């Protein structure tokens, strides 16, 4: 469905991604694992058109999308739930959702989608007239996901959806990611909560220092010694004892 081919991305003179390639198949949950500053967010932002690759290409169903403006990529069905939620804080819950359905295609289906989003997140229906900035962190994350769903994504990208949330809410977010995937939306997930993310993942890529350095299925990586040591907090010495 989505193919990233040999992509180089720069921030000014600084190169953030070096020949990154990855593939996402229809219906999958793909997870990106890696330390802070490895370029995971940059990769997501490149896919949705907020960064332009200096080399390489991004293909959706075989069509290049790295040359079209970001707002048109949304219309093609790729939507990002950005890090830090980035809600329209002074607007109401309902207005945030409405703006999420801005593209012609999404606007056409707006009422139906709104119904579905309210079924998934009853709290948003309850609080639809509340100002977004006054909601709790977990509720704001629900709204951010709801807003993205309003854009009718075929591929939904999540950038650190559990960051800064209470553990019980985090669990909830992972359930939502899974539910979204089961409703037929392909998912690309960047998550610092590596263990939970890999349990959810069909496949995962390891990104370090702007390069893809490994990949495998979720369960393969969960049992991989290097991954366990680097990201899951197991040390070989402790295991040996």
């Amino acid at each position, binding site marked *: 469905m989505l193919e990233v081919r040999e992509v180089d991305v720069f921030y000014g003179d600084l190169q953030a991604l070096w020949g990154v390639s990855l593939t996402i198949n229809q219906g999958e949950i793909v997870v990106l694992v890696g330390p802070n500053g490895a370029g995971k967010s940059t990769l997501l932002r490149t896919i949705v058109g907020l960064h332009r690759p200096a080399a390489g290409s991004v293909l959706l169903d075989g069509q290049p999308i790295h040359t079209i403006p970001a707002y048109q990529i949304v219309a093609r069905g790729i939507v990002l739930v950005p890090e830090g939620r980035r809600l329209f804080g*002074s607007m109401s819950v309902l207005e945030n959702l409405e703006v999420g359905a801005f593209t012609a295609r999404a606007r056409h289906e707006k009422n139906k989608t709104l119904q579905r989003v309210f079924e998934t997140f009853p709290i948003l229906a309850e609080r639809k007239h509340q100002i977004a900035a006054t909601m709790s962190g977990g509720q704001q994350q629900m709204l951010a996901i709801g807003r993205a769903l309003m854009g009718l994504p075929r591929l939904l990208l999540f950038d650190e959806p559990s960051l800064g949330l209470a553990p019980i809410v985090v669990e909830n977010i992972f359930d939502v990611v899974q539910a979204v995937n089961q409703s037929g939306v392909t998912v690309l997930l960047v998550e610092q909560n590596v263990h939970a993310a890999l349990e959810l993942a069909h496949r995962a890529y390891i990104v370090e220092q702007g390069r893809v350095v490994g990949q495998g299925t979720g369960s393969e990586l969960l049992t991989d010694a290097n991954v366990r040591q680097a990201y899951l907090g197991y040390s070989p010495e402790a295991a040996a004892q």
Partner: protein
Amino acid sequence: MSLATIAQTLVFGVFVGSIYGIAALGLGLVFGVMRVLNVAHGELLMIGGYVSFWLFQLVGLDPLVSLLILGPVMFVLGTVLHKLLYTHVVRQGTESKIKNSLLISFGLILILQQTAILLWTGDERTVQTAYTGRTLALAGIVLPYTRMANLGIGLLAVIALHLFLHRTYFGKAIRATAEDWEAATLAGIDVQRVYLVTFAIGTALAGVAGALVTMGYGVTPTIGLPWTLKALVVVVLAGTGSIMGAFPAGLLLGMAEAGSALVIGAEYGQVVGLVIFLLVLLVRPQGLFGKGGLRSA
């Protein structure tokens, strides 16, 4: 000092303030959404004033009726100016955007002013309608028709803008872009188009303010800068995060100036406005109607 004098003064303050309010509404809208300070806003107001004057002079259109033509004309002028001058600037980072837009709009001031002098000379032009100078007396307070029209048009413009920003899809897109252009892009909004329309609306509002200025005071090629400054004071009073707050802030400034003219003398009216401006910056830097802190990120 009689009660009637005080009431009369404040009423005139409200009338003047309604023009401040519309002038500031356009400037504040453009700044709030695009983060571009258009110091040529007063010159756009001046152009609007001349359009209104010539429509009256040549075609005989009443300045209130001709607003229906003036608005669209200024809207188109705004789109042209934006395409020519600002399209490239608004893509830049915050800091260079502010700097470059200042440079561009300072240049625009010179061009518009000199063009106006060349075309229309430095003479003051006024519009004398059948009702100019006619007044309505209400409980001992004199209400000139033209000034009441100022207030009426001002209120209409504010209500129309409010409805547009809150009830239409594109208006919501404008507000979303003002808050976070990147998140707006991620929702599928073409922010370049939002900027274009916003600038055009700002220009149209400047034009409407110009027509009212011409009707009430007269227009010359050099009235621009004082109006830009006045609008800027009002925008800061309202709080740069509060687009709609500009109108009540304008009314407030108008009343404060008029009231102080009564108490400490007309020559200090301007000073009092600026003192209030400084006080607000000191005590409540987010502005009277700003939400403070929420949008600082």
